[in-house]
């Protein structure tokens, strides 16, 4: 498994696209603080308001499943790996872990740019305390878990859908439309509100506002998504014809 992950990281980190992606994300993080700084906002406002933007990366994390898994479908390179007798289960899990590691690298650089620029450009603000930071990092950590579920959804779709454009559309569609459907259904029966609440795109917005005591629900929901997407993805991948 380790060698499969190592090989995927070797490939991903030899790709210009990844570095452009990192540069754009880090640039946006810095720009955010520059704009807030120009308007006299404090670090507390910057960090606090950034939680309302957590939905945005959820729509982007499928790129990591794309870099690691979907491109193998596009380039038909999976046959080189499978024909060597590498276990499909191990390969699927390794692809997911690799995508998570690559996304972790992007997240690390982006957060470093965000915090670095925040500390350099902005004043702390009255509420910028240790408690504030601790609460902030807990919410960010749960968001990471939801992003991992997003990557797992992306990998599952990459296995199911061969066409790259369709794969990304399906990913975005699956994040956007089920909550809307549940919302509409809840007008008929309020029980469907629970369905809407269990969606990843709902949860990523919930963790910005929910009290700390209720955050564990989001953790369980993210973990449940991770388990379901991995099991389904593995079942599909094990039966898949490789071209």
């Amino acid at each position, binding site marked *: 498994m380790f060698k499969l992950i190592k*090989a995927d990281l070797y*490939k991903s980190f030899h790709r210009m696209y990844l570095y452009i992606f990192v540069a754009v994300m880090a640039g946006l993080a810095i720009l955010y603080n520059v704009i807030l700084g120009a308007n006299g906002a404090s670090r507390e406002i910057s960090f606090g308001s950034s939680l309302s933007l957590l939905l945005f990366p959820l729509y982007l994390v499928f790129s990591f499943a794309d870099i690691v898994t979907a491109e193998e479908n596009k380039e038909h390179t999976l046959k080189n790996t499978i024909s*060597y*007798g590498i276990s499909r289960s191990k390969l699927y899990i390794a692809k997911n872990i690799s995508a998570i590691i690559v996304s972790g690298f992007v997240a690390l650089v982006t957060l470093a740019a965000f915090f670095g620029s925040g500390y350099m450009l902005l004043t702390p603000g009255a509420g910028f305390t240790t408690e504030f930071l601790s609460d902030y990092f807990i919410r960010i950590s749960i968001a990471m878990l939801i992003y991992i579920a997003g990557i797992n959804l992306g990998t599952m779709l990459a296995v199911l859908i061969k066409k790259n454009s369709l794969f990304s559309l399906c990913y975005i569609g699956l994040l956007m439309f089920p909550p809307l459907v549940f919302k509409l259904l809840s007008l008929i029966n309020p029980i469907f509100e629970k369905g809407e609440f269990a969606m990843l795109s709902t949860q990523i917005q919930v963790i910005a506002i929910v009290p700390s005591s209720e955050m564990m629900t989001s953790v369980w929901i993210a973990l449940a998504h991770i388990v379901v997407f991995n099991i389904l993805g593995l079942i599909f991948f094990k039966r898949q*014809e490789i071209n």
Partner: protein
Amino acid sequence: MTDTIISTRNISKKFGNFFAVDNINIQVKKGEIYGLVGKNGAGKTTLLKMINGLSIPSSGSLKLFSESSGSGIENMRSKIGTIIETPSFFPYLSAEKNLEYYRIQRGIEDKNCVNNSLEFVGLSNVGNKKFNNFSLGMKQRLGLALAIMGNPELLILDEPINGLDPMGMAEFREIILKLNHKKNTTILISSHILGELSQIATCYGFINKGKLIERVSTSELKEKCKRTLNIKVNDTNKASDVLKNKLSCTNFEISDDNEIRTDEFMNTPEVLVRTLVLNDIDVYNVNQSGLNLEQYFIELVGGIHNV
């Protein structure tokens, strides 16, 4: 140590109601160059994909290096180098980086194997040129470089010379023969270019409509395709008497269209013709014929319209 490298038993692949591969039993022995011959859609690629684990058989069983369990077969596949259809690699990586990716993935410790493979196929001088800028010939060579990386005991090559120019084909042939002769690599190869295949294969499997219709060794094929003298006459009964009694020739056959075929008198047809004519037999036509692999295959599947 096993003598049979690949063995399938009634292996089949069904897509809906269509059998792409229908109960095929195939045995490939160590050191053989097994040529798989069949028209487009005959089931060659599907069969090779099932052997490689890229396609899951609908029924039947497979043995690789005498292993028949799922995990055993999976382990044995690390002894196989493969080119299935067009070689595919990551377009933004160079030849060396592409092979390095697979070296890491396969856990091959010898880092020199990448350069050795590239050198073996004549790609050691392409530098940092990206795969998407490669010509078709270069792509085929890189496919072969990956296939031979790590010294596989078995090579499975599906149409490996498609798109190569005559020089490329000759070089490819040399590489295949070198691997077979020097490293005793067993090779299972499918190709449409039967002229090329006939120069390297030691045995053949003919596939038509998903079924293996015949397996022959090179010597058996040679016997079946051997050259004959064909004489069209007015009276085959009388001619056969003359052949037997006057020329002591017993090795001949008579076809329905008043034609006698023999592999004797190939170098002295005039003696045969003169004797027949002197015995009051009208000779309408004399010609020599023999089949090459392509003609043999066409005859086997029932004529050009079935190819």
